[in-house]
């Protein structure tokens, strides 16, 4: 069960541990009720067969119906409701968050903005958040289009991203690691390719990551990379994407300033690599049909290689 990164049974936070406990309560309780129902049913079948006549329900009164069909389920449901209140309990806001992250859902990717102490945007990235371990992190959720749901099962329960509204979540990882997240509200054909990674790391590693992410895109002297950069800013790429430091400032698609440093491409569709970047640029519709990025059929082989080399260099 620990092998699946989206498992609710390998929690890495107190909040997720409450969900795990609730899941076990419900599984065990359901199993007991299931066995009870099946045993009762089998007993009824056997009894009926022995007598050779149908059971006359009226002769026994309505005891089974009232107690087994109404009172007992009522008790069980009320008990479950009370137990689940614990898992739903509001997180403590007593300690101010160490980090505040704004996440905006898009079909089908996550825009991520870190704000500094003054509330100004410090870093923009996509599909990957880094958090310091053992520190409360505030996540403010909204969406640019349809309803999505932010779900990192090892760290927290689900919370929806609602159009025109914001939702507020706390994350606090108890151990370092990379945790998988997914959109948990069906949001269109590529809902399943709307994943994100949460990297929980030490204060120093987190600080280094934020510092690196807040710099502009790297300028390289390599001629292939320079050719790729030129293509990026002069052709279609820059009409949707930003690379800070290059003349590309559109923001309808993921910010690519440090795309080479990310773990995955296209919101978890592919593990990140030079080859994956080129394949994605050349034909995204084959890999994630319906994604907003078009298959352009506009670049020669060497141009595709140059674009991929440029983006891969943006560590």
């Amino acid at each position, binding site marked *: 069960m620990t092998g699946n990164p989206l498992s609710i049974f390998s929690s890495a936070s107190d909040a997720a541990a409450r969900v795990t406990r609730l899941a076990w309560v419900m599984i065990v309780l359901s199993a007991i009720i299931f066995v009870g129902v099946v045993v009762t049913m089998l007993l009824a079948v056997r009894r009926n067969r022995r007598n050779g006549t149908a059971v006359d329900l009226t002769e026994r009164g309505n005891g089974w119906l009232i107690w087994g069909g109404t009172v007992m389920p009522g008790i069980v449901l009320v008990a479950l409701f009370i137990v689940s209140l614990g898992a739903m309990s509001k997180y403590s806001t007593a300690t101010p968050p160490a980090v505040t992250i704004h996440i905006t859902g898009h079909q089908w990717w996550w825009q991520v903005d870190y704000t500094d102490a003054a509330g100004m945007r410090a870093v923009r990235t996509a599909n990957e958040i880094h958090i310091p371990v053992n520190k409360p992190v505030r996540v403010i959720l909204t969406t640019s289009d349809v309803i999505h749901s932010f779900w990192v099962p090892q760290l927290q329960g689900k919370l929806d991203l609602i159009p025109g509204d914001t939702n507020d979540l706390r994350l606090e990882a108890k151990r370092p690691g990379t945790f998988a997240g997914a959109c948990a509200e069906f949001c269109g054909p590529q809902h399943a390719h709307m994943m994100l990674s949460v990297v929980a790391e030490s204060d120093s590693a987190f600080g280094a990551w934020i510092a690196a992410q807040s710099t502009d895109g790297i300028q390289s002297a390599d001629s292939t990379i320079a050719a790729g950069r030129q293509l990026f800013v002069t052709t279609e790429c820059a009409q949707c994407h930003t690379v800070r430091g290059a003349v590309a400032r559109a923001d309808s698609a993921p910010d690519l300033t440090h795309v080479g440093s990310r773990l995955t491409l296209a919101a978890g569709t592919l593990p990140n690599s030079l080859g994956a970047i*080129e394949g994605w640029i*050349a*034909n995204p519709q084959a890999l994630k049909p319906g994604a907003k990025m078009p298959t352009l059929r506009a670049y020669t*082989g*060497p141009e595709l290689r140059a674009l991929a080399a440029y983006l891969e260099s943006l560590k």
Partner: protein
Amino acid sequence: MRRRVFVAALVAIAGCSRAEARAVPGGDVDRGKAVIVASGCGACHDIDGIEGARGKVGPPLDGVAERSVIGGVLPNTVDNMIRWIEDAPSISPHTAMPNLGLSSAQARDVVAYLYSRP
């Protein structure tokens, strides 16, 4: 003795039906699979047996051992396929296939995987 010959004949016949699957000396199929996943080959190529490898940029790679020419330029031998995977642009300057920075040994493992697929 007779039974042993029979078994050997069976093995040979079984081998015949997969004559396309060529052995690659020194190449490891499992390691090759891991290199293919990590290198993102599947973003451009449809590759049998690799999860999510349904790219439509380059050709599909099932039955690649049967093809006679690599990238439209090289005879399809094990050594040529290794060269192609290591650095395709040095062989075919207009190709879209990038130099992925793989070592010769990694390229050999990749070829072992690709040639093992019918």
